[in-house]
C-alpha cells in the first residue's frame, strides 16, 4: 500500500506530528514571560487527547491488520491497543509534570518540555507499529533521544544531568548493538521488512549460530528498552535522577512499547506464533531463553528492592520486577500470553502511576524522596489518611494481593504460563515466590505510613488547586485499581482483541 492510501491509517500519528510542528510555531508568537502558566502543558495534553481519540476511532472502525507505507508500518489491533496505552500514559505524564513542583506551571522551559514529550509519544507510536528494521530503529532512537533530553531537562541538582548522561551512554551502546544485530539479520535474509524476513527464514530454513548472534544483539536493544536483566542496570539510577513525573512515565509508556515490539518481533519474525505451519527449523526455540531472562529479571528486581530507602529507586526496582513478571507471559509463546501482557500493563499503569503520584505529592510537601518522609502519613489528618490509603491500595495491588487489580493481572500471567504446559511450571513457582519477597518492601512502606508510632513532620498544608487535581486523579486511579480487581470483564474483552493480530 503506497503512501497516500496509508495516510488514512496514519491519522493519529499524522495529526500528532503536525501538532508538534504547530506547537513549535505557536510558541514563537507567545513570548516566554507573559504566557499563562501551564499553557503548554495543557496544549500538550489537548494534542495527545485528540491523538488518543483518533486512535480509538481507528481501533473501532478498522479492526483487521494491514501493512501501510510500503510495509514500513503495520496497523493492527496489538499496535493500536498498546498505542492507546502509551498515549494514556503520555497524557498522565504531562498532567503529573504539571502537578509536580520541579516541573510545575511556572517552569520556564515548559514549551520545549512539551514538544519533547509529544515527539516522545510519536516515537513510541511508530516504534510499536514498525514492521521494518529501519522504522523500528528510527522509532526507538526518536523515543530514546527525547527520553535522554527529558531526563536531563530539569536543572534541579547534579543527579538529573548524571542520570541523563548515564541513560544516553547506556542507551546509545544498547541501540548500537541492536542495529549491528539487525545488520547481521539483513545480511542473513537480504531484506528489511519483517514479513519478507519471515518469508525468507521460513523458505530457507535459516538457523544456526549467526542467526542466534543477531537475535542476541537485537534482544539487547529491546531488553534495554524494557529494562530486563541484564540490561536493567541503567533504570534505577535514571528513575532516581529523572524528574518524578518522567520516571513515572518511563516505567509504563516506553516499557509497554518495548513489550509490544518485543512480542511483534519474537512472534512475527522469529516465532511460530499462531500459524503452526512454520516448520520449527525456521525459528529457534527462544522460550527457554526468555523464561530464564524473566526469572532473573523478577528475582533481581525484587531482591534489590528489599533494602531500598528511596521511594523512586524502590519503585524503579519494582518496575524491573514487574517487567520480569510480564516477560513470563511472553515466554509462554501463546496468543493468550499476548493478551495477558496487555492486561497486565493496563493494570500496571493504574497502580504504578498512582504510587508515583503519591510520591510526587509527598515530594512537593516534604521535599524528600526518602521513605521516612512517609512516617505516620496515615495519621496526618484526612488528607494524610486518603493519601496513605491510596498508596497502600497501589502498593498492595503491586504486590499482587486480591481484591486489587494487580492480583488479577498476575493471575492472567500465571494462567498464560501454566497453560503452556509442564515445561514452564518452575517459572510459575519462581514468580509466586517472588510475590512473597515483593510483599516485604511494599509492606515496609505501608508499615512506615500506618504502623509506626512516631508521627514525623508537619501535617499536610492547605489544599491548592494542584492538590485537588492530583487527589482527583489519584482517586480515579485507585478506584479503577479496586474496580478491575473485582470486575475486569471490560479490560478482558479489550485484551482479547490483541490476540487476533497473529492471524
Amino acid at each position, binding site marked *: 500500500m503506497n*503512501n497516500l492510501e496509508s495516510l488514512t491509517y496514519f491519522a493519529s500519528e499524522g495529526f500528532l*506530528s503536525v501538532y*508538534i*510542528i504547530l506547537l*513549535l510555531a505557536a510558541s514563537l508568537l507567545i513570548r516566554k514571560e507573559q504566557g499563562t502558566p501551564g499553557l503548554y502543558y495543557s496544549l500538550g495534553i489537548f494534542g495527545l487527547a485528540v491523538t488518543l481519540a483518533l486512535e480509538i476511532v481507528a481501533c473501532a472502525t478498522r479492526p483487521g491488520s494491514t501493512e501501510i*507505507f*510500503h510495509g*514500513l*508500518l503495520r496497523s493492527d489491533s496489538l499496535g493500536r491497543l498498546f498505542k492507546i496505552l502509551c498515549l494514556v500514559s503520555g497524557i498522565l505524564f504531562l498532567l503529573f509534570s504539571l502537578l509536580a513542583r520541579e516541573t510545575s506551571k511556572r517552569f520556564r*522551559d515548559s514549551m*520545549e518540555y512539551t*514538544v*519533547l514529550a509529544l*515527539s516522545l509519544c*510519536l*516515537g513510541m507510536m*511508530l516504534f510499536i507499529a514498525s514492521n521494518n528494521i*529501519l*522504522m523500528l530503529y*528510527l*522509532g526507538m*532512537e*526518536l523515543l530514546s*533521544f*527525547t527520553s535522554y*533530553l*527529558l531526563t*536531563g*531537562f530539569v*536543572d534541579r541538582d547534579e543527579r538529573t544531568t548524571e542520570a541523563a548522561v548515564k541513560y544516553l551512554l547506556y542507551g546509545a551502546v544498547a541501540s548500537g548493538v541492536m542495529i549491528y544485530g539487525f545488520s547481521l539479520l539483513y*545480511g*542473513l*535474509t*537480504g*531484506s528489511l521488512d519483517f514479513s519478507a524476513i519471515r518469508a*525468507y527464514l521460513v523458505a*530457507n530454513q*535459516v538457523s*544456526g*549460530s*549467526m542467526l*542466534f*548472534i543477531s537475535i542476541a544483539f537485537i534482544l539487547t536493544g529491546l531488553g534495554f528498552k524494557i529494562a530486563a536483566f541484564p540490561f536493567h542496570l541503567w533504570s534505577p539510577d535514571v528513575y532516581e535522577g529523572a524528574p518524578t513525573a518522567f520516571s513515572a512515565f518511563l516505567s509504563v509508556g516506553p516499557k509497554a512499547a518495548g513489550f509490544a515490539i518485543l512480542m511483534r518481533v519474537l512472534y512475527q519474525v522469529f516465532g511460530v506464533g499462531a500459524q503452526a505451519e512454520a516448520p520449527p527449523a525456521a525459528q529457534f526455540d527462544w522460550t527457554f531463553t526468555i523464561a530464564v531472562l524473566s526469572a532473573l529479571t523478577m528475582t533481581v528486581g525484587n531482591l534489590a528492592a528489599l533494602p531500598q530507602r528511596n521511594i523512586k529507586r524502590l519503585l524503579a526496582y519494582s518496575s524491573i520486577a514487574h517487567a520480569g513478571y510480564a516477560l513470563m507471559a511472553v515466554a509462554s509463546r501463546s496468543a493468550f500470553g499476548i493478551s495477558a501482557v496487555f492486561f497486565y500493563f493496563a493494570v500496571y499503569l493504574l497502580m504504578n502511576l498512582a504510587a508515583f503520584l503519591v510520591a510526587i505529592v509527598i515530594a512537593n510537601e516534604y521535599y524528600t524522596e526518602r521513605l521516612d518522609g512517609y512516617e505516620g502519613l496515615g495519621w496526618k489528618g484526612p488528607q494524610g489518611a486518603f493519601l496513605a490509603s491510596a498508596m497502600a491500595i497501589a502498593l498492595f495491588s503491586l504486590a499482587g494481593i486480591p481484591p486489587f487489580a494487580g492480583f488479577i493481572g498476575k493471575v492472567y500471567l500465571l494462567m498464560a504460563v501454566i497453560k503452556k504446559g509442564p515445561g514452564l511450571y518452575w517459572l510459575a513457582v519462581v514468580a509466586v515466590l517472588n510475590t512473597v519477597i515483593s510483599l516485604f518492601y511494599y509492606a515496609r512502606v505501608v508499615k512506615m505510613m500506618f504502623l509506626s508510632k512516631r508521627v514525623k513532620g508537619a501535617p499536610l498544608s492547605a489544599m491548592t488547586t494542584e492538590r485537588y487535581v492530583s487527589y482527583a486523579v489519584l482517586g480515579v486511579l485507585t478506584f479503577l485499581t479496586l474496580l478491575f480487581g473485582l470486575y475486569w470483564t471490560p479490560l478482558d474483552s479489550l485484551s482479547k482483541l490483541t490476540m487476533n493480530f497473529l492471524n
Partner: protein
Amino acid sequence: MEIGMRDIVFLCVALLTTIPCLIVVFSRNVLYSAFALFFTFLGTSGLYFFLDAEFLAITQVVVYIGGVSVLLLFAILLTKNVDEIRKTNMISGPRMALAGAAALALLGSFLYALKGARWAMNGNAAYPATTIKGLGDLLLSKYLLPFEIVSILLLAVLVGSLVISRRSVQ
C-alpha cells in the same frame, strides 16, 4: 587469485580503518584517540567507495569527519585544560581484563558462526551503477515516512539540546 591493483588499494584502506581504530582503544591520551577516530572515519568512507556507495562515502566524510569528530575535538578541548590531557585515560585492573575476555569471547564465537553463515545471496539482482539516483527514488517512494520522521527527530533533538546547553553555558 592474482593480487590486482584493486586489492592492494583495498588492503591499504582496510588497514587505514583498523589500525587507527585499535589506537582509539589502546591510546593513553584521549586527544590521540580522537585523532585516530578521525582516520578511522576516513578509512570507512574509503570502504564505502569500494562498495560503490559514493553518496554514503561523501555523507560519511561530511557528517562524521566534518561534524562529529570535530565536535568531539571541541568537546575535549573545551572541557580539559592542556596539562590534564596527557594524564592517562585508560583504566586498568580487573575491569579491563574482563572486558578483554568478553571481547575475545565475542570475537571467537562470531568467527566460528561466520564460518557456517550463509548470507542471503540474490546474485542476479541488477545493482544500479550510480547509487545516488536509486537512493533518491527509494527515499522519496518507499522510505518517505522515515525521511519525514527523521526531520521531526532532528528538530526535537535540536530544541532539547539547545535548551540544555544554553542553560549550562550561562
